[in-house]
């Protein structure tokens, strides 16, 4: 089994007496309510998804991530995990003292041991993380809305929020034990924020040919307008796995996290998180974690050259399509036929068909998956 990133699987989840003490202590602490994305970050830090992080980044690590894509101790880390607050709010918190982090509902979430408060340059962060300052990029827009002060420090989870997808919500400790129970020595992770079409299935099964198990890991959380709703993605994947995968070779669990659409940097970030879940390999396709045309189609594969120490092995896939002459899903390296024989996997085309109530051709989408999606009145985020 692959070691967690940084060498140690972080687990900062309070239980038993320590949890009770924390809840008591929390009554007298200043508190901070977090939005859904930050709540997910807290949970991911505490359960080891973000190992080796034990809290929100301090100044030193933040700078390292922006400038070198590494923490201050040289461990690779490409996406800043930070907690932003307003100036007035920050003034109410003292370095060296604890803060109660709460969900939007007010439910206690975690004890945050504030170590430092610092300011940052939003434009610099946007440009370095997203490689663009175009306001139309969702990550840039989000960065510009961030509050001006960042809080750095470690945290301990008191109580995880309830998720509607609890049956698919596993921590890294749970996935690691699961993979071991299944006898999987090598596991390939598949990151997705979409329902599956035949091309996705082809990529996953090709990778599974070389590994013991497949870990389908959809991102659940803030996405952009027009993306599939979380429940649509999960139920369609469950249907695909039930009908088209060998029992014992593929499992699915969610990753609760905001999609940043940071292209190359996020591809490495995704690899690190799946390493923490216990994956030895990860599928990286064309324009992984990209949006629009901000990133070269294979920049998210090229960036892995800069991280010879990641240990999780990226499996790079070129763009694929269905060839009528080959009569199978192929890619540009293995198919000699021309564009006239190609059926492209167009997400937009599939979406348009589904919206009109048409089942896409079997070369594009399994009919069972299509029917599941069409059962939803509104399968897309508004």
């Amino acid at each position, binding site marked *: 089994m692959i070691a*967690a990133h940084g060498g140690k*699987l972080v687990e900062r989840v309070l239980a038993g007496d320590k949890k009770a003490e924390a809840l008591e202590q929390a009554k007298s602490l200043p508190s901070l309510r977090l939005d859904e994305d930050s709540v997910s970050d807290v949970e991911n830090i505490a359960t080891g998804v973000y190992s080796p992080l034990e809290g929100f980044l301090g100044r030193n690590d933040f700078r*390292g991530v922006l400038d070198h894509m590494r923490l*201050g101790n040289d461990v690779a880390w490409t996406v800043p995990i930070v907690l932003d607050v307003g100036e007035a709010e920050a003034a109410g918190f003292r370095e060296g003292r604890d803060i109660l982090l709460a969900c939007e509902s007010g439910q206690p979430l975690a004890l945050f041991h504030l170590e430092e408060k610092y300011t940052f340059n939003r434009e610099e962060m946007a440009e370095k993380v997203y490689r663009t300052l175009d306001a139309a990029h969702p990550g840039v827009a989000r960065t510009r809305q961030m509050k001006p002060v960042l809080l750095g420090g470690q945290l301990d989870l008191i109580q995880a929020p309830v998720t509607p997808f609890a*049956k698919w919500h596993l921590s890294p400790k*749970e996935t690691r034990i*699961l993979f071991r*129970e299944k006898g999987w020595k090598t596991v390939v992770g598949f990151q997705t924020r979409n329902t599956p079409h035949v091309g996705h299935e082809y990529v996953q099964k090709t990778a599974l040919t070389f590994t013991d198990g497949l870990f389908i890991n959809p991102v659940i959380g803030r996405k952009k307008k027009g993306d599939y709703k979380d429940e649509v993605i999960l139920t369609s994947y469950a249907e695909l796995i039930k009908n088209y995968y060998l029992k014992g070779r593929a499992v699915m669990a969610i990753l609760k996290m905001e999609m940043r659409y940071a292209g190359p940097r996020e591809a490495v970030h995704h690899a690190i998180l799946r390493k923490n879940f216990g994956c030895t390999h990860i599928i990286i396709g064309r324009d992984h974690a990209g949006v629009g045309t901000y990133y070269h189609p294979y920049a998210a594969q090229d960036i892995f050259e800069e991280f010879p120490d990641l240990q999780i092995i990226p499996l790079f896939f070129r763009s694929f399509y269905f060839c009528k002459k080959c009569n199978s899903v192929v890619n540009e390296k293995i198919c000699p036929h021309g564009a006239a024989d190609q059926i492209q996997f167009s997400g937009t085309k599939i979406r348009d068909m589904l919206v009109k109530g048409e089942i896409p051709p079997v070369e594009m989408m399994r009919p069972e998956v299509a029917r599941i999606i069409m059962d939803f009145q509104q399968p897309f985020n508004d």
Partner: protein
Amino acid sequence: MDKEFTTVSLPTSLYKKIEEKIKGTEITSVASYIGKVLREHFAKEEASPEVFSQEEEEKVKERLKALGYID
């Protein structure tokens, strides 16, 4: 951040050996090569996967069974 880079001395013969080795490759400097090799080396030393207590394992397996992940 602390000073970002520091200077290390290498025997000239070793430096030249590395220069020769990286000619025609994508590695653009001796420093980059050394950084890459050392990072690979340290990654191999990364700690072995953790061992969970029997109690933790049993609790997790119960949950995995209840969710249908294992029989």
